[in-house]
């Protein structure tokens, strides 16, 4: 079945089973490999993308549900002011270890900062608890979110 999607501001057409999860459409039909597969059940957050600015799990969202929505992925988030600040903070704090979860972390963090410009630790925990990091970069994720919010490093 044919779908026309809006991904990172571009109209893209795909011809897939309507039940196909968005993560596979992004990765293997549109060759946007930044969105990651981790669990297939919305449990790890590695596949987090934005639908009309709100974070969703692309592994559990069928392509048919996003046909008339605006999708933003890690490849496009840097063109938004907040997304670009978050990416810069991620590099300044050197959050990354293996890096596999970080696209999803950045998407969740950008969504958090879009609705809360100055999150507390508790706000961060609540917004980011759905994103697993097996390398345990959580302390730096907190620091990077605060740095992106305030423009200041924690020390």
């Amino acid at each position, binding site marked *: 079945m044919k779908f026309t999607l809006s991904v990172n501001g571009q109209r893209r057409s795909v011809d*897939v*089973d309507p039940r*196909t*999860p968005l993560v*596979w459409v992004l990765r*293997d039909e549109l*060759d*946007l*490999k*930044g*969105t*990651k*597969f*981790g*669990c*297939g*059940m919305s*449990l*790890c957050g*590695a596949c987090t993308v934005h639908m009309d600015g709100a974070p969703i799990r692309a592994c559990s969202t069928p392509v048919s549900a996003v046909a008339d929505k605006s999708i933003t*992925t*890690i*490849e496009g988030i*840097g063109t938004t002011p907040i997304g670009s600040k978050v*990416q810069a903070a*991620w*590099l300044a704090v*050197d*959050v*990354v*270890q*293996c*890096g*596999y*979860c*970080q*696209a999803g972390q*950045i998407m969740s963090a950008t969504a958090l900062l879009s609705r809360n410009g100055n999150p507390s630790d508790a706000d*961060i*925990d*609540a917004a*980011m*608890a759905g*994103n*697993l*990091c*097996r*390398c*345990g*970069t*959580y*302390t*730096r*994720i*907190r620091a990077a979110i605060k740095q992106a919010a305030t423009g200041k490093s924690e020390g």
Partner: protein
Amino acid sequence: MAMYLVPEAAPSTGVSRRAFLKASALVGGGLLLDFHLPNAGAAVSDGAGEALNAFITVMPDGIVSIRAKNPEIGQGVKTMLPMLIADEFDVDWKNVRIEQALANGVKYGPQFAGGSTATPINWEPLRRVGAAAREMMVRAAAATWGVPVSELKTESGSVLHVPTGRKLTYGELAAAASKIAPPDPKTVQLKDPKDFKIIGKPMPGVDSPLVVTGKPLFGIDVTVPGMKYAIYAKCPAFGGTVVKANVDALKTLPGVRDAFVLRGNASVAGSTGPLDRLVDGVAIVADSWWLAEQAREKLEVQWDEGSVTHENDARFAEEAARLAQQAPAAYIVKNGNVNSALAGAARVVEGDYAYPFLAHVTLEPQNCTASYSGGKLELWAPTQNPESNRKVVAATLGIAPQDITVHMTRCGGGFGRRGASDYAVEAAAISKQAGVPVKLLWNRADDLRHDFYRPAGFHHFKAGLDGKGNVVAFRDHFVTLGSAEQPGSSAYAGPDEFPSRFVPHMEFAASFIASGVPTGPLRAPESNGLAFAFQSFIDELAHAAGRDPLQFRLDMLGEPRILDSADDRYGMQPDFDTGRMRGVLELVREKSGWNARQKLPAGSGMGTAFYYSHMGYFAEVVQATVAANGTLKVDKVWVAADVGSQIINPMGAENQVQGAVLDGIGQSLTRINIENGRTVQSNFHEFTPLRINQAPPIEVHFRTTPNPPTGLGEPALPPVIPALCNAIYAACGKRVRRLPIEAATLAKA
């Protein structure tokens, strides 16, 4: 075009320890240096080979490329190892480019990620590579100007003639340097550490800009022309075989290109365990991975579940309790006379400890892309162990190892899981049978149910204190898994286990439960279970003696001295320096405010533990709070570490330590259950890695001592588990003797 050298034949015996370099010109005036270096006497586990090889290229524009030979799994070696070369070469880090090498054991020597070995193996040899390259540039400048070498110095990728102020960049000197015979790396002058400009400076990961923008880096991101997608369904019971499957029906499903049964082979050379090979399964090859997954839902298989279906957690626990009452199968340590020392002790303390199976759950599920054609195979694998992949795949497919090219991709986590070759051999066999390139990807249930688990373990302690509270006798009967006679992978311990060598009468005995559950190394293998059991029981002894648990440990360690190792299992035999362990205990006492811990509110407490693994000395303090209903909050962790004279990359080092600490806390809070010879858990709602809301702040303090630098991927992990359990005891009086920690067991009665 760069002209790459044909590597010299692998050196024969007697020559293999000789370091040598080769220089050659690059088209366009560049220099290429090809190095073969021995391991400089560094300890290497697993009998890894002698040769180490790196490439440096210097282009006329001054850009220096350094080839990273080891797999990057998040431990930071792709950044850290080139820092060693670049500093001694005296180039600016901003002009250094890093490229990932192919897997090629002949060319590069050992290429693996494991055992926290990259730092101790490479610390001196890679610096000598850089220093030799620097010396060549100096000699090229001396020849160009006709001046003595003594009048020259280097700085930021240039050679300066001090008396005249003349300057040539390395890029300008590259062509001339390529005609100079390289020096013997043994003879080159290394920098005084006070002159380091890159080593010791915080350097962000070299690939991080690609990570945060979502560029394809990982195994799962690989695409090759004509590629199809594959899944491989195996028997839920370990090692089970296929009787029959409805493969013809599967072939009619949407998008399915092929479906077939593959037969497992016998254990093969190079494998890391009995099931690290091709095992029976059903392959489905489709136009998309999701369509292959959809077809899996229609899969009907009759399995022969084999001989493991009686295995379950309850049986292991019962068997362990039974074996603990019997004479042990083996002694790891047997010193003095424990029975008579216990009989004469003022006080005897006993405790039974247990820990569960654990899975690795790399967040990137196991995957491999394989392209087989005409007896040749190309693999793209997120791997910690490319040469093992090559051996196992070659033996399974019946092709020559040199007909396999292994591309090492970045790994979305390793933790020991990607030392095995099972997923690589599946991808290769499926590509061969299907006749097309395939990307095999496991789903999360495959990953959790077909792991090589951290083995469960059982410890039965009994120790005696004299009238002054000193430990005079110590016994552990360790019941572990394996065959009836010997331990399985990562299921044992060595004779150096503390308090061996510190207690006059000690028995460390072992018995084995025969099991078909596949086991293997998980980050800080062996230590991640042993530290919990031993350092928790030692805490019990401290409390029984009525002593400060941290001071009790210092007293057990005694005066600073170096003790020889009796552990020759890995060819390492690391000495134990009691002074270094005392140093980190004293440092963590100071930094954590340990001596003021009695001022903490009711329900909160501090616990401590130390552990020596991977040649790193670590002492940690955990502060935890336990609510009346048993809810646990880890408030803060303090780490004091001694990994030698130099922290090479402070930015990466702190990240590794914090990650290992959180990994350890996560290990203490979850488990894998075995029922009917199979794993119960299927996804992250059942096997629960640590989340950000459970992650405490972690202070990391390094104590530098005049010792060769050692690795950081693992040694911070083991002590945090007992330190946490000891903090729980301090907070609420409940002794955790069985992992995982469960809130219900901590609630007030």
